[in-house]
């Protein structure tokens, strides 16, 4: 794109234009590098975080989530705008680079674009710039006029972010206009001089600008050309150096935040990477108490937040008025980093995070449902940070009284209710269970190939014991050779770990691991998604574990299960995805497939289902915590079910059951809504006798019982 009076050849300014532009390049890049170096300082002081493994998988994720913008369409309108802008930026990269260099070396052409590809590229990028410009206008209108709720900043978190957002949108728009005006004035100048005119894409911004300026005097055109060029260069470098001061830093950091993102679901980071469990006693301090105790990836996450608010929009704690907003967990930490590791000035010490940046309730309010992580387009992680902050509070003895009792009971009795260990297996002695065959206790006198891991709530809670009974009856009817650990089972420790009590968790895990190994089983089944997740991800060296819905789905597909018809035609069922079965472990279809096999069962989907399922309120220790909230998560969920036209909620988790049952009462919807566990629905409708021969075989082979 050689101009008549190329910008590089202006000689009547104070300095030759070529030198000016070159200087701006050098200064701009140097500033940017300096700023980035300052931004990296806290990361050099952070905890280690091994994220350099499995490069191919990580590259694949970059292609999917970064290049492919995989999560963006979850919010259709904003997602579309972003995809267009992102694609536009990628396409425009070479053009921008060329424009910048042309001010110093006027004949510069990008390698590969010198032949026929050049004009094609120019036309494509004309449209790209136009679309980006239009997106900026639409986005600004959206922010200023329609003001989507998720961008709002509650007073306690400070001032609105909209002015800054609109400022940035404006700058990008200016960049597009400057680029388009440069191209337009080049073409207009060439046209007036009778030189070959570059083709501008029809109806694109440069094309329309050329029509506007086409008949202006050449001198004006030249002024516009150089002016546009200067504005372009200055705006480009201003944006480059401004981005690391706010949410737009994600433009640079997103590639890295996606590449280095966590590869597994449902797991937690260890207390300290590189320190084995046996050596944890030597660690001076557990958890994150000061900012520097975050890992470098966590700090990178803080920089990478685009303030889109999708996390908070899906966070159930936020929805019910708890003092937690994931968005502000990140933004406040980012602001802390900006304040204590400034670009201009020296790094300075801060105070402990809890009590100064975060409140205790803010950190305890999280149910670890994972909705935030599922939503974030930048793959920012939250659960590990919350757990690390909790580890720090536990280490300091700073635990709400409501949680101290169940923690103490877990330590002394292996369950949060303080009930006696010897009674843990008593639920299995009921006559209804005996009907389908006695439940064996794997105490050394019996063995089986399958362990039914019951966990605490199903063992001890009067209402939840029915899930245990239903599961045992189902396993019996399926002909499974199974048993329970009974009194030698302790709480899986899933929430103990997620509430930050790592050592108590390890004690429970080690005890259970030994008991499981001693039982000699080859597989584990559970009806409790929290136990399922713990056994699958937190425990090592235990046999593979499945949730009862997975077992049932397999048997249903194999034709081993038949169901009776649903009796009550009026019942409409809605399946609620438990967080730890659905989102964290991606078991969405198996429970649905099982339900859909029951003849005559009417099922509807709630608005928020599958990976957008709305947490019931949380399980394990969360049942004991007394949050400050405006209403219960369960109540919100029950209303969603009613809205979907259901009168029965089916869930596959005892904690969901507890929360939803309570919520039905609190919402005053008794009689209009009820809740059942998947196992109860199956138990109710299962045709018995299909696997009878198998069971009889087993009973004759069993020793004791």
């Amino acid at each position, binding site marked *: 794109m050689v101009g008549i009076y190329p910008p590089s050849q202006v000689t009547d300014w104070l300095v030759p234009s070529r030198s000016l532009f070159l200087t701006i390049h050098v200064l701009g890049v140097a500033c940017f590098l300096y700023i980035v170096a300052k931004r990296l300082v806290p990361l050099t002081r952070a905890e280690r975080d091994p994220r350099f493994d499995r490069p191919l998988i990580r590259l694949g994720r970059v292609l999917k989530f970064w290049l492919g913008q995989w999560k963006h369409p979850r919010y259709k309108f904003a997602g579309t705008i972003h995809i267009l802008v992102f694609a536009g930026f990628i396409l425009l990269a070479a053009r921008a680079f060329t424009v910048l260099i042309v001010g110093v070396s006027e004949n510069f052409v990008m390698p590969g674009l010198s032949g026929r590809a050049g004009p094609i590229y120019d036309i494509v990028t004309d449209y790209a710039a136009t679309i980006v410009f239009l997106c900026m206008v639409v986005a600004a209108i959206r922010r200023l006029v329609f003001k989507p709720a998720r961008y709002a900043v509650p007073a306690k978190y400070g001032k609105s972010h909209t002015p800054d957002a609109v400022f940035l949108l404006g700058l990008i728009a200016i960049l597009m206009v400057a680029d388009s005006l440069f191209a337009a004035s080049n073409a207009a100048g060439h046209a007036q001089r009778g030189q070959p005119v570059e083709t501008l894409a029809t109806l694109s911004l440069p094309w329309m600008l050329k029509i506007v300026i086409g008949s202006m005097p050449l001198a004006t055109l030249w002024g516009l050309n150089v002016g546009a060029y200067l504005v372009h260069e200055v705006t480009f470098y201003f944006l480059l150096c401004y981005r690391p001061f706010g949410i737009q830093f994600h433009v640079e950091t997103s590639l890295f935040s996606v590449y280095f993102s966590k590869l597994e679901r449902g797991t937690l980071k260890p207390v300290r990477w590189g320190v084995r469990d046996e050596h944890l006693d030597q660690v001076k301090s557990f958890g994150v108490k000061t900012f520097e105790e975050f890992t470098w990836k966590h700090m990178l996450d803080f920089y990478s937040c685009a303030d889109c608010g999708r996390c908070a929009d899906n966070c159930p704690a936020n929805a019910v008025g708890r003092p937690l907003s994931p968005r502000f967990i990140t933004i406040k930490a980012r602001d802390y980093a900006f304040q204590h590791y400034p670009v201009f000035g020296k790094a300075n010490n801060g105070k402990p995070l809890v009590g100064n940046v975060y409140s205790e309730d803010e950190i305890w309010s999280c149910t670890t449902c994972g909705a935030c992580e599922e939503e974030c387009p930048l793959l920012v992680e939250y659960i590990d940070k919350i757990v690390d902050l909790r580890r720090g509070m536990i280490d300091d003895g700073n635990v709400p*009284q*409501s949680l101290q009792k169940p923690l103490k009971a877990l330590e002394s009795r292996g369950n949060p209710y303080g009930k006696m260990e010897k009674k843990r297996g008593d639920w299995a002695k009921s006559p209804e269970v005996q009907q389908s065959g006695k439940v064996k206790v794997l105490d050394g006198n019996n063995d089986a190939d399958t362990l039914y891991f019951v966990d605490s709530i199903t063992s001890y809670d009067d209402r939840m014991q029915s899930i245990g009974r239903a599961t045992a009856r189902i396993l019996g009817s399926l002909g499974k050779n199974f048993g329970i650990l009974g009194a030698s089972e302790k709480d899986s420790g899933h929430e103990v770990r997620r509430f930050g009590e790592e050592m108590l968790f390890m004690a429970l895990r080690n005890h259970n691991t030994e008991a499981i190994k001693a039982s000699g089983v080859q597989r584990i089944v559970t009806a409790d998604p929290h136990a399922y997740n713990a056994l699958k991800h937190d425990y090592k060296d235990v046999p593979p574990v499945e949730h009862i819905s997975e077992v049932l789905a397999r048997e249903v597909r194999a034709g081993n299960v038949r169901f009776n018809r649903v009796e009550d035609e009026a019942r409409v069922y809605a399946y609620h995805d438990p967080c730890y079965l659905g989102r964290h472990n991606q078991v969405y279809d198996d429970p649905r497939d099982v339900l859909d096999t029951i003849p005559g069962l009417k099922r509807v989907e709630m608005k928020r289902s599958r990976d957008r399922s709305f947490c019931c309120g949380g399980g394990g220790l969360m049942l*004991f915590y*007394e949050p400050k909230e405006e209403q*219960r998560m369960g109540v919100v969920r029950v209303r969603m079910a009613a809205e979907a036209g259901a009168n029965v909620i089916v869930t596959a988790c005892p904690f969901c059951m507890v929360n939803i049952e*309570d919520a039905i*009462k*609190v919402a*005053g919807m*008794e009689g209009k809504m009820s809740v059942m566990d998947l196992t109860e629905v199956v138990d109710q409708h299962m045709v018995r006798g299909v696997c009878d021969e198998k069971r009889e075989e087993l009973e004759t082979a069993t020793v004791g019982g």
Partner: protein
Amino acid sequence: MARIFAYIVHRSGIVDDSAAELAAAARKIDASAYPTAIVTGWGADLDAACSSLTPCFREIWKIANDALAYSNAEFVRQALVNVLPRNSIVLVSHDHFGIDLSPGLSIKLDSAFVSDVLAIDGVEGDSLELVRQEFGGQVSTHVRCDMSSGAVVNVRPGAFKPEQSAPAAGVVVDKSSAVRALVARRRYLETIVAEAGDVDITKHSVLVSIGRGIQEKDNVSLAEELAEALGAAVSCSRPVVDAKWMEKSRQVGSSGKTVKPKVYLACGISGAFQHLAGIKGNPFLIAINKNPKAPIFQVADVGIVDDVLEFLPELTNKVREMRGVAAK
């Protein structure tokens, strides 16, 4: 038999039931004995207290001292040590004052001390046979106390029924001069009265009272709904206040309010005596508790073994049905 004394606490000259209860307790130790009341204080209040005791006690020892105008246990202890004969048996009500006074008193008198006694079975030689409870009232114990060098016995309020015997026509004896100078190493400053809450539970004739069995703050609403349907008020036991689920003004018990309702529904309350001590007037007590062994069933008129979280809504519905309000 050693002489039996009963230390009577008065508040601004007013003596409560505990005086007659102590007299009855003394009779259990020695059926033929008439215990001597001891009262400390100052001025008109003290005189009023003494006269009100004349029906229960034959002899009332009055100790007047301006330092005793407010019953400071540290002072009272010194006064009693000056005045009591050796090897006496002293009965005191096991309340905030008795807890403060008696253990130290027993040491200064060089006597034995038994706390929170529920029943007196009798005397065997030099031994007093008593009944106490342990573990929050879950088990009882027989206790033997060697009273050869005297004994201080704290008696549980409400455990002994006042006797309806012939009036005693007591005589007031002034023992003030026997008291030497009282040393002040603990000084009373003031009493901060508990904040009046929104509801005065002492004024309600029906109370729906909740305990630990309510399990969490959100479930308090179940009791409130029942109370609303009944036209009653919600009160509670101490653990509910400690957990901050209800205000202190709703607490029934020895460190809370004393109530005299007609009907008392004890929902998820175990029945620890400190709570029961706040219930007077022998109301019709209905207890609902998951634990069939809860001590509350020993004092209830009607008992139901059930989970209050399930029972309360059921009861609320029945009340609403009866009243013709559509069950929610």
